[in-house]
């Protein structure tokens, strides 16, 4: 009995050892590549498409262990990436924001220069819109190369509920002057003229940049970044003051700090808001709204007194798919394969078809799908843009500036004065400049 037991045990151990060896050998062959995007919500068509493509890649590439560590929340996404960098184990493929604010990552070799790979494989990237590469071109800082592939571009635009305007007998206002004139009647009827979900502090940052473009074009952005203008100079003070005046006049409704960007969409669908300022990234979601037939897309309102900036936009390249593995690293080839897969023409063509042509894309397609009404309306405005920039703070090497401006401007909704807000921003900018002099 003892002997039989010993034999069984030995056999089990031998099988276990062989199995263990097999598993280890397989594991050794596989190269692990992590991918970090902000696509983790299966209810969103664009994100679901990405998740399906991850599954497809995993199936087609058994030699690569592709781990999707994506997370929708922007702050969590950034923290995950930054901690991986600080721990000397940067995530291999990720969304990179580009611009001067992220120059450190490029200068210190965290982001791989893919210009050589693009040259070696002319088909990869050939269909991309060249202008979208500008934020990952750091030649102005003495760093050559290309540091990522653009993701779909965006534009800050507005969505109107045409039914509300029809009911009130008001023409949909496209300028700030017209919105100011229409606001009392809209408020009187119990609607919010323009919903502003300030719980997400990026809403304030987007609004401020979009507003500055309509008032000054990109001149103010350039002057602020070069230091020629200060944040508490009359120009920026005037813009923040304008936002505050509109808030106090009820243009943005109330309880703004209690709801976020999704709340804005809910107010549009729930017929509480006549207008929301949003962006092209929400076209797909709004297309699924129960009252889609009432929704119209228009450009961000302009100033009648500034017709020269009517077509100046906040928008352009959103972020980039970049990689951290360097030539010679054991996982370089696998990482490059992952990057190419998720930035290929096929990937975007599939997305284009999956979304029925809705939204914007970083590449030019040979075939055209007849897009939905919102996309068509958006493109009518977007295609005539004369000047376009991302959020002002992205152009500054001061990493904290974006959060600072967004957070401070949001305090309009909790009673801070415009003057205090711009003074606090300038104080921090001065301190940064002194520390880095």
């Amino acid at each position, binding site marked *: 009995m003892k002997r039989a037991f010993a034999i069984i045990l030995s056999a089990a151990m031998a099988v276990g050892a062989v199995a263990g060896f097999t598993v280890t050998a397989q594991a050794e062959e596989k190269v692990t590549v992590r991918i970090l995007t902000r696509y983790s919500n299966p209810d969103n068509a664009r994100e679901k498409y990405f998740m399906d493509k991850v599954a497809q890649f995993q199936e087609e590439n058994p030699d690569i262990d592709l781990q999707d560590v994506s997370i929708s929340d922007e702050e969590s996404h950034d923290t995950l990436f*930054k*901690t991986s960098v600080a721990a000397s184990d940067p995530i291999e493929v990720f969304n990179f924001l580009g611009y001067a604010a992220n120059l450190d990552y490029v200068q210190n070799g*965290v982001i791989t220069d893919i210009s050589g790979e693009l040259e070696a494989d002319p088909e990869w990237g050939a269909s991309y819109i060249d202008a979208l590469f500008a934020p990952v071109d750091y030649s102005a800082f003495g760093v050559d190369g290309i540091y990522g592939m653009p993701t779909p571009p965006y534009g800050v635009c507005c969505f109107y509920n045409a039914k509300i305007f029809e009911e009130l007998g008001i023409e949909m206002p496209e300028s700030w002057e017209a919105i100011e004139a229409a606001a009392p009647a809209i408020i009187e009827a119990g609607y919010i003229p323009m919903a502003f979900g300030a719980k997400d*502090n990026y809403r304030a940052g987007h609004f401020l940049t979009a507003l500055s473009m309509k008032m000054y074009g990109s001149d103010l952005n350039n002057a602020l970044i070069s230091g020629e203008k200060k944040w508490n100079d009359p120009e920026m003070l005037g813009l923040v003051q304008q936002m505050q005046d509109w808030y106090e006049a009820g243009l943005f409704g109330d309880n703004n700090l209690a709801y976020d960007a999704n709340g804005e969409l809910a107010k549009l669908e729930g017929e509480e808001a006549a207008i929301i300022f949003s962006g092209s990234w929400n076209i797909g979601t709004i297309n699924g709204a129960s009252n889609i037939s009432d929704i119209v897309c228009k450009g961000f309102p302009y100033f009648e007194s500034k017709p020269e900036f009517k077509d100046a936009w906040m928008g352009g390249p959103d972020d980039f798919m970049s990689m951290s593995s360097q030539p010679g690293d054991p996982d370089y080839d696998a990482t490059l394969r992952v990057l190419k897969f998720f930035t290929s023409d096929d990937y975007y063509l599939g997305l284009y078809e999956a979304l029925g042509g809705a939204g914007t894309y970083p590449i030019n397609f040979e075939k055209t799908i007849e897009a939905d009404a919102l996309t068509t309306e958006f493109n009518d405005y977007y295609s005539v843009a004369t000047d376009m920039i991302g959020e002002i703070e992205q152009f500054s090497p001061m990493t*904290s500036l974006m959060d600072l401006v967004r*957070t401070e401007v*949001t305090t309009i909704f*909790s009673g801070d004065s415009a003057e205090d807000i711009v003074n606090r921003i300038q104080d921090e900018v001065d301190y940064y400049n002194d520390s880095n002099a």
Partner: protein
Amino acid sequence: MFGVMSKRKKFEALLVSLPAFLLYSFVFIYPMITVFRLAFFKWNGIPSSPMQYVGFRNFIAVFNDRKFMIALRNVGIFILSGVFLIMPVALFLATVIQSKIRVKRFFRTSYFMPQVISRTAIALMWYFLLYPEGGPLATLFQSIGLGHIDVNFLGSQKYAIYAITVINAWTYAGFNMLIFSAGLTSIPNEILEAAEVDGASGFKRFRYITVPMLKSSFQIFILNAVVGSITTFEMVYVTTGGGPGSASEVFGTLLYKNAFTYNNYGYSNAMGAFLIVASFVASILLRKMFAYSDRK
């Protein structure tokens, strides 16, 4: 301790304690030394980026930061709320579950429940509770004619920190109830019964017997409240993230933002070093105060 031990015994004792010492050093001492070391450098968190020695500049920046003063004030509010809000509530709850009522087990579980709920779930729950458009509190206020009061306290620069202290009290009262409950259990019944026989009223028994005999529980509570307030982070982070503006910033949120949002690791480590020192000094001072009070 080792004086009466043989050399062999001493060696064995050292050998046995070595793993614990190494583990402690690895997870506590080493990171702490690293925090103090990095506090003297300017660094963006990228390992390949050179660290620039800046002396005490990060500490000076911390103490000159407007937000540091806001955090200091908020930590003070947290400590006061611990003493004046959590302590009486926890003591009251402890007396309830130590009383002879029949459903005390139900109360004990109910009071402790918030302690085991995820902080994020708690934040979400309170967010909806305080939601100004149709939220339960807003509806209640409306029904009693107080509809003009803006219940979105977490979105108010003036009231956000107070709202957080209430949420904090709701969350931690149950845990502190256990501290006081343990203290109450240790009071011999004979003393209370003797006082009762002597004609002492319920209040007098509480004031002259229960409270003095709970001294060590109070000491544990106060130590936890002070050190916990200095190092508080998660409750503020999940409810307001330190906002609106910087109204509810505490040291922990400042540390987090400077490291992970602003890539300002030197400043962040200076803040971390301050937190370690402040917690250490606070606990030493409190222990000395307690020891002095015990001797009196």
